[in-house]
């Protein structure tokens, strides 16, 4: 009995100490929690420097979200739907922003942050919903066409001029090489489909703000069929390698680095990644704007990135927006690009000499971001994206005469609540 009593006393002492400890760390400075997507530590660094710059006005703590965008969305949506007050600042993947903005889960952006001068067009579009800025662009991502100079040279391809998918496919066929694209049943497949449809002058969703019953898709068009033709050809001719049906961005990078590598569409993270994993390849590496579908129409490269939103149920929305203002400073964006490889949304950051030195393709990225077309913006993005993935996977089975139609019928039925996804 005495031992029991002693244990209880010991435990209470520990509990008391813990509470006191928490109190002393509190020191009256409000703590803002920033939910970040996993990166190489750059967001935590910015959080620390902004905490310091705030001079005791607030403290930013980071909290890690799951690795992939879909799981990040699941967690945030669930917690916001439950009015979670701990969600102060959130790093948000653009396609899911309308879904969170529509039910009022995001606090309104204050006037001080409404100014979008100097922010790349793709990022501003992705940060808005119903014509209003609902989040603040932080960094902006885009895919480039990466190529092996030796392959392009052997084919006599002038890479200073825009190239088309047809040209790339032809070169890969002639030289028995493989093309790095993302064919896995994942968001990356939607990214590819959207870029192809948009590059062909079409759009997946005709009227983004329509209610689910009235939505119309733009897949059964020449643009949709052109996209299906490209994916189907790369798939059925084996040009994406046997790993294509399960290839994500990393897998296509590995393919590109291998002996059969030729061309690849991918995000700029591959630059630092290839530098460290395979320095030899850098001498043979070239980059250009995303390939065109139609030789006469400029490409519409994929755009992504991260925008910052503030939770509507946060207890410190004003402070949170002040912190966001600090986080998105061009210096921070430039620093983040240099250390983590994620391109800035603010054009001023591209002029930073360190950025220019470390990312020789920085100007191509900026050009690509201005051309970029965001994915369909709608609160039902998830249904559309997964519906596309289901019907356009595996790439070997994509057929321009059938896929756009089955895809349209399926997605519309899901949106009307008549089919499971």
């Amino acid at each position, binding site marked *: 009995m005495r031992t029991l009593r002693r244990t209880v006393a010991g435990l209470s002492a520990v509990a008391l100490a813990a509470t006191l400890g928490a109190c002393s760390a509190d020191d009256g400075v409000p703590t803002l929690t920033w939910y970040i997507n996993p990166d190489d530590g750059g967001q935590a660094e910015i959080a620390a420097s902004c905490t310091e710059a705030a001079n005791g006005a607030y403290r930013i703590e980071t909290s890690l979200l799951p690795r992939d965008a879909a799981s990040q969305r699941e967690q945030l949506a669930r917690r916001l739907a439950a009015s979670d007050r701990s969600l102060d600042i959130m790093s948000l993947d653009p396609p899911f922003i309308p879904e969170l903005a529509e039910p009022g889960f995001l606090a309104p952006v204050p006037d001080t942050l409404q100014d979008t001068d100097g922010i790349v067009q793709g990022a501003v579009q992705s940060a808005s919903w119903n014509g209003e800025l609902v989040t603040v662009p932080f960094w902006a991502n885009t895919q480039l066409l990466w190529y092996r100079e030796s392959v392009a040279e052997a084919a006599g391809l002038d890479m200073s001029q825009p190239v088309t998918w047809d040209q790339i496919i032809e070169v890969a066929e002639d030289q028995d090489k493989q093309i790095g694209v993302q064919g896995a049943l994942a968001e990356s497949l939607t990214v590819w489909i959207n870029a192809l449809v948009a590059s062909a002058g079409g759009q997946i969703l005709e009227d983004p703000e329509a209610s689910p019953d009235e939505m119309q898709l733009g897949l059964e068009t020449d643009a949709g069929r052109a996209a299906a033709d490209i994916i189907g050809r790369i798939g059925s001719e084996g040009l994406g390698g046997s790993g294509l049906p399960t*290839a994500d961005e990393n897998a296509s990078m590995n393919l590109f680095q291998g002996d059969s590598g030729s061309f690849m569409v991918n995000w700029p993270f591959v630059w630092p990644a290839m530098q460290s994993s395979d320095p030899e390849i850098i001498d043979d590496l070239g980059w250009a704007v995303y390939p065109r579908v139609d030789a006469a129409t400029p490409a519409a490269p994929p755009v992504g990135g991260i925008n910052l939103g503030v939770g509507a149920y946060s207890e410190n929305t004003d402070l949170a927006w002040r912190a966001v203002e600090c986080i998105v400073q061009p210096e921070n964006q430039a620093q983040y690009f240099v250390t983590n490889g994620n391109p800035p949304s603010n054009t001023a950051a591209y002029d930073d000499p360190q950025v220019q030195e470390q990312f020789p393709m920085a100007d191509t990225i900026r050009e690509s971001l201005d051309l970029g077309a965001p994915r369909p913006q709608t609160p039902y993005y998830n249904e559309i994206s997964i519906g596309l993935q289901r019907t356009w996977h595996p790439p070997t089975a994509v057929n321009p005469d059938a896929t756009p139609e089955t895809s349209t019928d399926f997605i519309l039925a899901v949106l009307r609540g008549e089919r499971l996804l």
Partner: protein
Amino acid sequence: MTAEIAATGALRADRDRPDTATRPKKRRSDRARAEARLGWMLAGPAFGIMLLVTLYPIVQALWDSLFSLRLTAPDDREFIWFRNYQVILGDPAFWQSMGVTLFITVVTVLLELIIGFAFALVMHRAIKKLRGFARTAILVPYGIITVVSAFAFFYAFDINSGGYVNSWLSWVPGFDEDLNWFASQSTSLVVIILSEVWKTTPFISLLLLSGLAQVPGDLEEAAKVDGATSWEVLRRVILPNMKAAIMVAVLFRTLEAFRIFDNIFIMTAGANDTEALSLLAYNTSIGRLEIGLGSAISVLLFLSVLIIAGIFIKGFKVDLSAGRNS
């Protein structure tokens, strides 16, 4: 897991217990009543907590399944009676999921039963010195978290991350070293089933081992003296005497296999028509945030599990409390 342990325990305990069901009903004595009261006091809190954590969510899911309810559109909530069930049962995707789930269940349970029985015999018959070692070695996979084993199998077979299985199998005539296991339904299912069997065979063999221990040794000896071959001893003496253990093992594993989630989630995420029912429920409730539709799928999954348990208990007359065929 608790249920599994309880089942193993029940099998052992029943041998020394009088068969209460056959005793004629009598007025209970004061002492019996006091014992019953003590029993309730001891088990009551646990029983209450069980109700709270299982019954409440089940009732909530039943209720939610009658609504059109999307988590990100709470204001559009609408009572729609059984329309969710109508959509689900009328959708080929649901029946496709049901088919895949049943296929995985039947194949894994059959394979596990055969391999598990072999393991149980080894553990039962192994020389005393080796018995402890054999048991530990066989039980190791069961101690590994399913997600971990799913990743291990995934990386072993995935050609994009340098899986080694293809180069191991390169000597097999007609085997294509570039085979992408996760690009078609059949090959994906092979890996999923393989991982599932590797992971849970020890559970079946553990239950079968306790069944083997129940077979009276003198019966076996008598059969041998009468000139029965080992095959006849196995078929006529050992198997009939451990039928109850086999049925309990099969019942538990069937129910568990029917709810398969982790392996598929990690390996294919439902690609190539490998989406099992629980993954469909997850994708609808958690992925699409369609709480109404997802709850309806969960309810159907729950009903399927009840039906399977019912078939076993009524159809095959498995008496869980007696651990013996009635």
